[in-house]
């Protein structure tokens, strides 16, 4: 009553999956490799006669993707509470390429912490981009959290350092460091980021990634992880109807957890990442 899956016959279906994943913005090389490995897993697999092969494959694929992206990551509210209880300062640095949503995400994280009873200090360490300081300042005012700034052109590491000194002196237990957007291939700017990290030794270095990103997600994740080290990823603009295949690209490339998703421009629009939800979004209709 059992028969082996006929992989030859299934080849077109599997190729179709590569395209389907690519259309959901999974990087092509990641989709291709995933399906290659998946084929290995299917080899020699026996199924009951009369069972729907397509369904079996789809379920198995869901499982494979789930396994890949199910990387446990920290809950920043819990981490902040712990730090507060232990009298330390939780230092979180946000980084990423230009315009992905770092500053807005910091505002959302600040809001989330504030709601949980912990007031973070913001460090305006983007001293480069026009309007960057005013942007973060307006967020700080609206949310009601302190912010440390320096004039444009100041050393970002010095701003971050000052913010930590400020937090120490005033008894705050979380510092969120905003950094300027930068291209991952810009060596000078990546060195600048490393310097910030060296000076403040963040507990978490968070890579912010835009859900609309296609194949480049792999490159961004790889370069930031190699140059600075990535502890977790936040994917923004998921509300833009993006399938967010970048989640898979990142998980496959640097094997770091996705912590939160940005789902709008409001302060409440930050949710925890749920792997099953994501698999549904990716493969479900």
């Amino acid at each position: 009553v059992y028969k082996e899956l006929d992989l030859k016959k299934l080849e077109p279906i599997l190729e179709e999956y590569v395209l389907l994943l690519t259309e959901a913005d999974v990087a092509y090389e990641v989709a291709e490799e995933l399906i290659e490995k998946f084929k290995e897993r299917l080899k020699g697999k026996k199924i009951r006669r009369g069972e729907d092969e397509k369904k079996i494959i789809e379920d198995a694929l869901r499982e494979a993707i789930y396994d890949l992206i199910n990387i446990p990551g920290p809950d920043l509210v819990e981490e902040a509470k712990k730090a507060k209880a232990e009298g330390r300062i939780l230092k979180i640095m946000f980084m990423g390429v230009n315009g992905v949503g770092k500053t807005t995400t910091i505002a959302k994280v600040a809001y989330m912490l504030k709601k949980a009873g912990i007031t973070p200090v913001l460090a305006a360490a983007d001293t480069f981009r026009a309007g960057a300081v005013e942007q973060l300042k307006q967020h700080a005012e609206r949310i009601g959290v302190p912010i440390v700034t320096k004039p444009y052109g100041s050393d970002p590491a010095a701003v971050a350092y000052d913010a930590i000194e400020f937090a120490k002196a005033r008894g705050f237990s979380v510092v969120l460091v905003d950094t300027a957007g930068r291209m991952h291939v810009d060596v000078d700017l990546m060195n600048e980021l490393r310097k910030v990290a060296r000076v403040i030794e963040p507990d978490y270095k968070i890579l912010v990634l835009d859900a609309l990103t296609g194949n480049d997600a792999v490159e961004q994740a790889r370069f930031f992880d190699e140059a600075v080290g990535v502890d977790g990823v936040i994917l923004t603009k998921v509300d833009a109807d993006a399938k967010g295949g970048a989640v898979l690209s990142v998980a496959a490339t640097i094997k770091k957890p996705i912590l939160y998703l940005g789902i709008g421009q409001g302060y409440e629009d930050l949710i925890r990442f749920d792997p099953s939800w994501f698999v549904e979004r990716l493969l479900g209709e």
Partner: protein
Amino acid sequence: MLEGVRDAVRKFLRSSADYETSVNMFVKELQKTLIKSDVNVRLVLQLTRRIKERALKEKPPPGASRRDWFIKIVYEELANLFGGDVEPDVKPKKIPWVIMMVGVQGSGKTTTTGKLARFYKVRGYRVALVAADTYRPGAKDQLRQLAERVGVLFYTEPGDDAVGIAKRGVEWAKKKGAEIIIVDTAGRHRKEADLLKEMEDIAKEINPDEVMLVIDASIGQQAKPLAETFHKTTPIGSIVITKLDGTAKGGGALSAVAVTGAPIKFIGTGEKLDELEVFKPKKFVARILGLGDLEGLLERL
């Protein structure tokens, strides 16, 4: 990976396999490269189907080898993707010329507004910028700082009446004798109905000569539906691809060209105000294909 199509071309030109097999192999490689460059998957499949058809049906002109001819077909079809290989005309067709910047959040509208101000100022035009993004914190400060740096006229108002600010800003700029007036608007995407409505209203009020869609080079498959929605809301007149100084290839912009019929006019190659270039189609195809010496190859044909 970058070498994909270069190798494929080389292999194709030298292959001892029969023509049809070589074409099929080449087409497969081309598909991969284009998809990796974020060109829309369906667009890629259409394109390669057409290339294959032509390659097997058309006869090369006398003197040209079938294989060289094939490469030319490939190039032509690719050039068609972005409306031909002519360089865009960036001169205003009348004075004053009103440009309205639109695009998804963070694509680079405000920065490009500053760059365009510089571009046209350097060429002798009197430029005014209008900050009508009432949504993003710091957006008006950002544009004001850019306008100051470039040294051009600047208009905004406090408050959140984006339509009113745009309207009064354009009127003010005209009175001031501005020849190029650029209106920066908030970022928005195709699921934000209120914001799309706002964009439509701004366009109705200021009646722009050119709506410029700003596209991030790293955008993936969403480029197509996004551009479609924008085009439906306010017909797109031109396209700018930003952030080509990273590793992203910018293939998403080709979907925008395909659905809007608008030409790509400029590319952004850095954060600084002078890092804006007039779009060069051949250079761009070469980048998408990972080919450096496309010019040389074409001259032979």
